[in-house]
């Protein structure tokens, strides 16, 4: 098994944190993992993305030109990155913010209204967890329980009060995505 995941959004959307939570969960599960952040120069509001490799073998390159899964959290990310998706891969898109899909072939596009779901849960900032929950619906590399444990380990002390909200985000994402998957 070798999963090459690329996750992108606007700074503040939490793509990096979602990636770190997944990385922690994968480590706990005993798989090999690497996580690499790519920042734009702005501290806030620029584009941020992270690249992960999850494998039961040798990680080798932490960089992938054609990730097997991409998670794109806003319209700009979709425009910039959806074409990178490997043939036969999956693009998981936050359909609340991205409405137009550039034409891609041999890529399965899964649309999740991540931001709307997060607002429904009471906080737009948990969009990243909704998308991450949706991701493990599509690629069950770890379970939701494993992600919840990882969240506890990764969340900084000052954000502990958001732990419940984040777990509900994961749950809602997972459920939505299972529905979305069933639809297709």
């Amino acid at each position: 098994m070798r999963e090459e995941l690329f996750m992108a959004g606007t700074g503040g959307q939490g793509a990096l944190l979602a990636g770190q939570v997944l990385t922690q969960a994968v480590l706990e599960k005993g798989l090999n993992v690497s996580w690499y952040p790519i920042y734009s120069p702005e501290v806030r509001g620029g584009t941020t993305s992270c690249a992960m490799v999850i494998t039961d073998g040798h990680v080798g390159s932490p960089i992938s030109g054609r990730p097997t899964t991409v998670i794109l959290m806003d319209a700009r990310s979709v425009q910039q990155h959806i074409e990178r998706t490997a043939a036969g891969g999956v693009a998981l898109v936050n359909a609340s913010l991205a409405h137009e899909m550039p034409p891609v072939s041999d890529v399965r596009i899964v649309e999740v209204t991540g931001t709307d779901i997060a607002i429904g849960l009471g906080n737009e900032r948990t969009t990243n967890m909704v998308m991450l929950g949706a991701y493990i619906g599509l690629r069950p590399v770890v379970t939701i329980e494993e992600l919840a444990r990882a969240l506890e380990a990764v969340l900084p002390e000052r954000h502990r009060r958001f732990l419940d909200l984040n777990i509900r985000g994961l749950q809602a994402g997972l459920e939505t995505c299972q529905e979305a998957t069933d639809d297709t």
Partner: protein
Amino acid sequence: MSEYVLMSGNEATAEGGIAGGCRYFFGYPITPQNKIPEYMSRNLPEVGGVYLQAESEVAAINMVYGAASTGARVMTTSSSPGISLMQEGLSYIVGAEVPCVVVNMVRGGPGLGNIGPAQSDYWLATRGAGHGDGRCLVYAPYSVQELHDWTARAFEIAERYRNPVMILADAILAQMIEPCKLQPRGQPPPLDKPWAIGGDSSERPRNIINSLYVNHDEEEAVNRRIQARYDQAARDDLYYSEYGDEDPEILVVAYGICARVCETAVERASEGGVKCRLLRPISLFPFPSEPLAQWAQLAHKALVVELSMGQFVEDVRLAVEGRCPVELLNRTGGNVVTPEDVTQKLFDMAAES
């Protein structure tokens, strides 16, 4: 896996320094390595050490020089523009024959460049140490674990040769997070080196740490003594690793992050029927010329992959000495070579022959 913790390359480097007995850190902030001074500022006081933020990289390396003169284990870290500024101090440190460790998390250049990954300080690292005949001993880890382990080990090597050791990595290795098994925090050796200044000098001859030799013959003798240490390092502290097929059609040569990319590419090329051997120099100075030459003799052609306009490739060509043609695949300016790029190149090269 519980003995492993997730850590960024920057943090693993900093903790590697502490594990290696480093108790003194002088530095100046520059992206993408700021997590190292931040980590040191939190952790060094806990082990009775000193973290000090200097007014410039110029000052930082001279503080390192001062601390190194006392025999202390001392380090600084920076990224490309900062390493340029440290060249003056490095030259004095080499000339005065004191040990220290310097980490360069290379970023895109020249000039202010950008904060993306690059390997365009290869010449600065391997030829550098400022003016004069001196050089740094240079080691290039390729994972978070290796950043940790090599930084810890670097102090011992620096002391063995009384010469600065540079750990050369890049913005990706600095910031990527991987599982890392941490070494215990080692105790620094005592300060009482026979050459060191400081302490009580009443019961021994006074010591002078100096790089001024106005007598030309004396200066030449110093240069030959330093060179003899480099020659010894080429025998005793030369490191490289190999990956892939035993009877390669193509020899792939890369270090640091590019070697990671090449491992995946070599696997894929191999699956596609193109036999490749990856040789990864870990020590860049001393350079593993002999094993490279041996593999170049066996292979039909060689491919060098690096994130610069072609610096590392020159050392490879010097080592290969025309035994086989050497091609270069590169990206620069903060861009990276992907496994897909390298795999395609290997297929193309195989198809040409």
